[in-house]
């Protein structure tokens, strides 16, 4: 097969929409919890309100005013309306109701929240918007959704396939994020010259540390943080190897010892397992909000829809 034919085939395949639907549901629910926390902490107006309504935004810092407040008169009610609309769009997304439109509404409203107070918008928010935008064009509403129920009479749809490219694009996006995060780690303490001290130093930062980690200075805890720093860096740098694993998985007929070994031991799952451990570690030790959970939500795309079916069968049997 020529490389061009392989490339076209790669993006032209279809598969069951199960994995995409799982990502849709997971990310929508995770962002929903984040927004409910915004309301619970009484931060809707400070974060989403205009300055004249009591919001924190600085109009002098805008290159151009956010579209939302050029269309709607700034007020406390307008801030709550933005919050409510985004919550409604996320509920519809999670439920799979008018899925493509709901996802587009999430992206556009979420972008306005980012524009209103840029400093309250983090890298993970941008990553989630990227993924929601891909999902809007993916057919992820064909399974586990109100749309499937309305169209086919079953919540689980009629088994019709969806394109594979959105799931592959999400995987690529996550891999690009990890790899660029890895190559940007040029801080001295991320390197052996800086004694792999980065994780230890990060955990002394009161802005992000969950609690007092000064005890990590003692042996063997400091050495464990060094190991954690080295593994984090190596793991992020090793991201491109996942592309090789996925290539091997899509061309099992080609043979070869390395391919057979990769397929037999499911090396892509081992790489993911390190990621799961990494994010759970972040969730336990740092206060980064939805970041670790949203990242783990994207991992659902790494598992092929047929693998999810096998997992479900195994759970049902046991």
């Amino acid at each position, binding site marked *: 097969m020529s490389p061009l034919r392989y490339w076209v085939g790669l993006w032209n395949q279809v598969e069951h929409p199960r994995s995409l639907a799982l990502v849709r549901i997971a990310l929508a629910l995770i962002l929903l919890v984040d927004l409910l926390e915004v309301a619970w902490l009484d931060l809707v107006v*400070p974060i989403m309100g205009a300055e004249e309504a009591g919001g924190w935004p600085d109009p002098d810092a805008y290159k151009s005013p956010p579209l939302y407040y050029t269309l709607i008169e700034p007020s406390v009610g307008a801030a709550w309306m933005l919050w409510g609309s985004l919550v409604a769009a996320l509920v519809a997304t999670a439920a799979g109701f008018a899925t493509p439109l709901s996802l587009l509404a999430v992206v556009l409203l979420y972008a306005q929240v980012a524009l209103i107070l840029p*400093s309250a918008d983090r890298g993970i928010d941008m990553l989630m918007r990227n993924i929601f935008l891909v999902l809007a064009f993916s057919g992820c509403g064909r399974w586990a959704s109100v749309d499937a129920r309305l169209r086919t009479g079953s919540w689980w749809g009629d088994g019709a396939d969806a394109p594979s490219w959105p799931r592959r694009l999400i995987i690529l996006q996550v891999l690009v994020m990890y790899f660029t995060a890895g190559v940007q780690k040029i801080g001295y303490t991320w390197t052996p010259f800086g004694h792999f001290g980065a994780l230890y130093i990060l955990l002394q930062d009161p802005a992000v540390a969950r609690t007092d980690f000064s005890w990590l200075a003692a042996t063997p805890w400091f050495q464990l943080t060094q190991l954690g720093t080295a593994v984090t860096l190596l793991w992020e740098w090793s991201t491109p190897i996942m592309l090789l694993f996925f290539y091997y998985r899509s061309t099992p007929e080609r043979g070869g010892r390395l391919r057979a070994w990769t397929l037999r031991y499911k090396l892509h799952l081992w790489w993911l397992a390190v990621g799961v451990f990494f994010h759970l570690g972040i969730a336990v030790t740092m206060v980064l909000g939805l970041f670790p959970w949203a990242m783990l939500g994207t991992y659902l795309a790494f598992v092929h829809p047929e693998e999810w079916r096998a997992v479900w069968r195994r759970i049902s049997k046991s």
Partner: protein
Amino acid sequence: MNEASFSRPEVREELQRWMGLVEALGIPLDRSQVKSLVKSIGGPVGRARWRAMKPFRGIFDLTGTGQGWALFATADSHPQRLEVWIGVGDEEVLVSRRADPAYPHLARELAFRRVRGVYDSVTGKPKGTYRRFTRWVAERTFEAYPEAEWVRVQQVRTHTVLPWEKEDGQEVVRYALTHERSDG
């Protein structure tokens, strides 16, 4: 990187460490050379990226999408701790300190990721968003402490060293803003 970035202690320390490594290899360097090298690489790369993305800028702005992130590219050796103080008569009382359970006032709000971004990203003279944020903290604090006559929100910059390095006990108060109850 601009000129102001080079005056930040964490950047100075980072630069010093890398320069020390290069000098240990027998290559003499001076600070201004390194600064111009960093600027000469960073400037054109940033401009080229901006030009390449320009045709898509409208879509990126409308959808809030892009590829800009860095997950702790450098570990900040000069972190800042947010504190809230109140004035009662002649006394100054600490009521809130980030990640310190002994001073838990507004702990949940100040730890929330979206709020952290607001005060953790402040650089230079505190103004705009940071000023409004401190006013919000002051309003909540006046409600919780009716005896408070004023509220001061500040950040204390410390210096983290590796376990075998000598601690310098550095504590610099920055971005301190005081709000009087009478300010309304």
